[in-house]
C-alpha cells in the first residue's frame, strides 16, 4: 500500500516535470522541471532497492548536469520567454505528436508484455519467464542482486532492504565490466578535451563582412565603455 502511494506520487511528479520540460516557454523553467523529474526517478530508484543509484542520480544529474545547463543558459542570456507556437517547419508539431503517440503505444505494449508476464510468474521458469526473455533477451544473470532482495521477491520477508547494494555493484564494475569501465574513462577524457577545444576562443576567426562583430566583442566594448564612463 505504501509502495503504491509512493509510486503514484512520484509518477505524477515525473510526468508533470516532463511536460514542464517540453512545454515551458522559459528554458530556466524547463531546467527546473527537469530537476523535479530527476528527483521523482531517484525516489523510484530507492523504492526498487537501488539506493546508490538514487544518490548518484541526484548528485550527478541535478548537481552537475542541470547546473551545467543552467550555467550555459545564463551565459548565453537565453533566459527569456520564447515563442514555442512559432512553427517555421510546416507540420512539425503534428508529426511530433504522432511520433510521441506511436512511441508510447509501442513501448507500453512491449514493456507491458514483459512486465505483466514477469509479475504473474514468481518463479523464473515457465511461460512467463520465456515471454519476458522474448523481450529482454535470453536470461544470463551476471551477478544476482543481494539475497535479501531475492527473499523479498518470493514474498517471504520484506524488512531488511538490501544493505549490500554498493558492494555488489562495485564488485561487478571492477571485475566483469572493468573493460567498459576503462573505456568510460577514455570517453570522459575525450569529452573534456573536445569541450575545451570547442569552447576555446577561436584565434583564426576572420570576421565575415556580412555579419556584425561577434557577441564577445560587443560585450568587451560595453565593458570598456562602462569603465571609461565611470572614471
Amino acid at each position, binding site marked *: 500500500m505504501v509502495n*503504491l502511494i509512493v*509510486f503514484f506520487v512520484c509518477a505524477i511528479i*515525473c*510526468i508533470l516535470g*516532463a511536460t514542464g*520540460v*517540453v512545454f515551458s516557454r522559459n*528554458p530556466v523553467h*524547463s*531546467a527546473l522541471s527537469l530537476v523535479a*523529474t530527476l528527483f521523482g*526517478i531517484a525516489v*523510484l530508484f530507492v*523504492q*526498487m*532497492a537501488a539506493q546508490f*543509484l538514487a544518490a548518484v542520480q541526484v548528485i550527478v*544529474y541535478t548537481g*552537475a*548536469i542541470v547546473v*551545467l*545547463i543552467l550555467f*550555459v543558459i545564463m*551565459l*548565453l542570456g*537565453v533566459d527569456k520567454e520564447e515563442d514555442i507556437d512559432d512553427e*517555421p*517547419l510546416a507540420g*512539425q*508539431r503534428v508529426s*511530433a*505528436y504522432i511520433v*510521441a503517440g506511436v*512511441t*508510447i503505444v509501442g*513501448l*507500453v505494449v512491449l*514493456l*507491458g508484455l514483459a*512486465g505483466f508476464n514477469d*509479475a504473474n510468474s514468481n518463479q523464473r521458469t515457465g511461460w512467463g519467464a520465456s515471454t*519476458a526473455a522474448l523481450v529482454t533477451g535470453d*536470461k544470463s*544473470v*551476471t*551477478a*544476482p*542482486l543481494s539475497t535479501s*532482495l531475492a527473499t523479498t521477491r518470493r514474498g517471504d520477508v520484506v524488512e531488511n532492504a538490501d544493505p549490500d547494494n554498493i558492494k*555488489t*555493484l562495485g564488485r561487478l564494475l571492477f571485475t566483469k*565490466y572493468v573493460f*567498459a569501465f576503462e573505456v568510460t574513462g577514455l570517453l570522459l577524457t*575525450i*569529452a*573534456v578535451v*573536445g569541450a575545451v577545444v*570547442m569552447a576555446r576562443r577561436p584565434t583564426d576567426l576572420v570576421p565575415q563582412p556580412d555579419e556584425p562583430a561577434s*557577441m*564577445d566583442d560587443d560585450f568587451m566594448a560595453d565593458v570598456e565603455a562602462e569603465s571609461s564612463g565611470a572614471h
Partner: protein
Amino acid sequence: MTQLYPAMLGLSAALFAIGAMGLLRRRNPLVMIMCVELMLNAVNLTFVTFGNMLNDAAGQAIVFFVLVVAAAEVVVGLGIIVAISRRKPGATADDISVLRG
C-alpha cells in the same frame, strides 16, 4: 512491489515518449538537450526495473555507463552550443542545420 513493475515500465515509456516529443517539437538547442536527458532517464528507469525483475545486478551496473555517456554528451553538446552562439547569438536548431560554423 512486484505488481508495480508493469506500472514502472509504463511510466518510463511515457517519459521516453514525452522526451521524444519535446526533442522533435522544440527548436531551442538547450531544451533539446534537456529532452535527451529525459529520454536517457526513462531508459535508466527501465534498466533498474528489469534488473529487479530478473534479479540481476547488471541492470543497475549499466545505469552507470548511461550516466557517464549522458554527462559526456551534455559537455560536448553545450560546448557546441556555446561555440555556435558566439558566431550567431540566439541560434535555434533551424539555423544550425548546416555544420559550417
